């Protein structure tokens, strides 16, 4: 990809972000519930009407919509996403604090997924329509069908409650705390990817270069790992980018299930407490991370695929 295209893509990202910011701002504005009132009730206080009005004034909720949006956007551009209503801290610092745990969990589960999915997918493709293939296909069917929160609960039941190997919840980001949430995320993902790997490898195995390599006397092992796998991995990079995007947004269900201090958990808290600035900041983050990862994925083909780099 040329530098010009990259610049164009970055500009596109900015435009989309602007659109996203407007949409999230309007949606939260239109959503039922009064944040001023909520800020009292969350502390167990039932306020008088004048007290609520005072807070509304303080939060800027009395001004016209477009003014509110303009003020917010202006602040955002200066890096100030406002203060979280429920936590009384700047949104940016709240998000940043949760980012690291989510990053750790995302990469941990992604690596776990690859470790599981690649060998299984390869075996399944190489032994197509033989018992290892049927076994893997059965397992992947199970994997994509089981809801991940249910799988997480089974893990809790077995690993934490029965065998006492791991803590039930994961309030910190230590290795033992991350194992169960990561497994819960990795298991259904690896089932999905094992199928993708299988399909991609099967397709590559039918390519002429495999016949060529065999005719040159290369062993099946060398053909598979040095030639077929790198080719098969190419189309999977895009998928991997999408998965990474959704993982970096935080995976609400799993994080809540294990009380893991990540972004997904934070988003759920923000929503339940009508924390508008936090929700907006979070949604912008998701939009940004998806687009940036997409851009990175697209540019990465320059690196991985010489046909893209050299414009074949």
């Amino acid at each position, binding site marked *: 990809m040329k530098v010009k295209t990259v610049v164009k893509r970055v500009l596109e990202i900015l435009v989309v972000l602007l659109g996203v910011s407007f949409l999230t701002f309007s949606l939260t504005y239109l959503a039922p519930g009064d944040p001023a009132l909520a800020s009292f009730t969350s502390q167990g206080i039932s306020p008088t009407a004048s007290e609520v009005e005072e807070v509304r004034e303080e939060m800027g909720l009395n001004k016209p919509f477009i003014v509110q949006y303009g003020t917010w956007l202006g602040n955002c551009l200066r890096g100030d996403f406002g203060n979280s209503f429920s936590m009384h801290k700047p949104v940016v610092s709240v998000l940043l604090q949760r980012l690291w745990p989510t990053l750790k969990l995302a990469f941990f589960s992604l690596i776990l997924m690859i470790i599981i999915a690649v060998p299984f997918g390869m075996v399944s493709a190489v032994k197509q329509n033989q018992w290892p293939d049927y076994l893997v296909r059965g397992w992947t069917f199970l994997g994509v069908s089981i809801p991940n929160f249910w799988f997480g609960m089974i893990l809790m039941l077995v690993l934490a409650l029965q065998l006492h190997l791991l803590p039930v919840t994961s309030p910190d980001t230590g290795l033992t705390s991350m194992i169960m949430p990561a497994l819960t995320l990795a298991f259904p993902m690896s089932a999905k990817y094992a199928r993708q790997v299988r399909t991609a490898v099967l397709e590559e195995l039918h390519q*002429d270069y495999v*016949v060529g390599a065999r*005719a040159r*006397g290369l*062993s099946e092992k060398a053909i598979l790992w040095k030639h077929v796998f790198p*080719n098969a991995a190419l189309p999977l990079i895009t998928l991997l980018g999408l998965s990474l995007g959704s993982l970096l947004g935080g995976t609400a269900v799993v994080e809540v299930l294990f009380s893991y201090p990540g972004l997904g958990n934070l988003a759920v808290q923000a929503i339940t407490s009508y924390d508008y600035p936090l929700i907006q900041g979070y949604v912008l983050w998701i939009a940004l991370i998806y687009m940036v990862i997409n851009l990175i994925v697209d540019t990465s083909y320059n690196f991985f695929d010489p*046909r893209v780099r*050299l414009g074949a």
Partner: protein
Amino acid sequence: MLEFKDVTIQYGQNVIVRKFNMKVESGEIVSIVGESGSGKTTVIRAALGLLPGDGRVSAGDILLNGQSVLSNSREEWLKLRGDKMAMIFQDSGAMINPIKKIGDQYVEYIQVHDKMDKQAAYNRAVEMLSNMRLPDPDRVMNSYAFELSGGMKQRVGIAMAMTFNPELLLADEPTSALDVTTQAQIVRQMMEINKKYHQSIICVTHNLGLAAYMSDQIIVMRNGFIVESGDRDAILNHPQNLYTKNLLSAVPTMGGERYV
């Protein structure tokens, strides 16, 4: 050197080649001529133990220097392929990995059959490429398949196949993807190789003109059967079978003379 004895090849229940007989002597060039689907490619794939999918030799025997290759183990095949026997394909460019440099794959190939260090293997590859009169072999080594022209890719394919001076070259339509001028050059180069190293060549082609030009022996196939086989001159001048006669009459004539 290579002998097919009543070989029958089938994919599942589908018989593709029936009772195929062929005897290739050392240094001889044999052409197998026939239309698409006649089973000619299947024959040379069988010689290399590389039948696609569930293809298998269901009857007969294939002998290499008097020894049956059909019971070869996987390791024995790996030793034969690319070393004692090598194959040249119709589109050599498609036969190498598109995302790896030609040089890397050439070096990899040499190191599979010969305990050479990387640099020695590289030098050997460059030498082979220059023998095929490829200009700037270092650049070729540093290129991907899609960066070369059809003729260059074909020369790379032949250079690779020639690396270990195989006793037997199997060529599957080696020139049909090329323009006429390049075709002539490649054919001449293959014949030079044959003269210089006394390699046996089995060339599969649908081009009777090409077969007539280069072979000692011609086998005409149709629907999996041998229609006619024999010395080049016998086939060209005294064809017995109607199909062969038709094939011959289909070769274009120029000024009333047939240039086959």
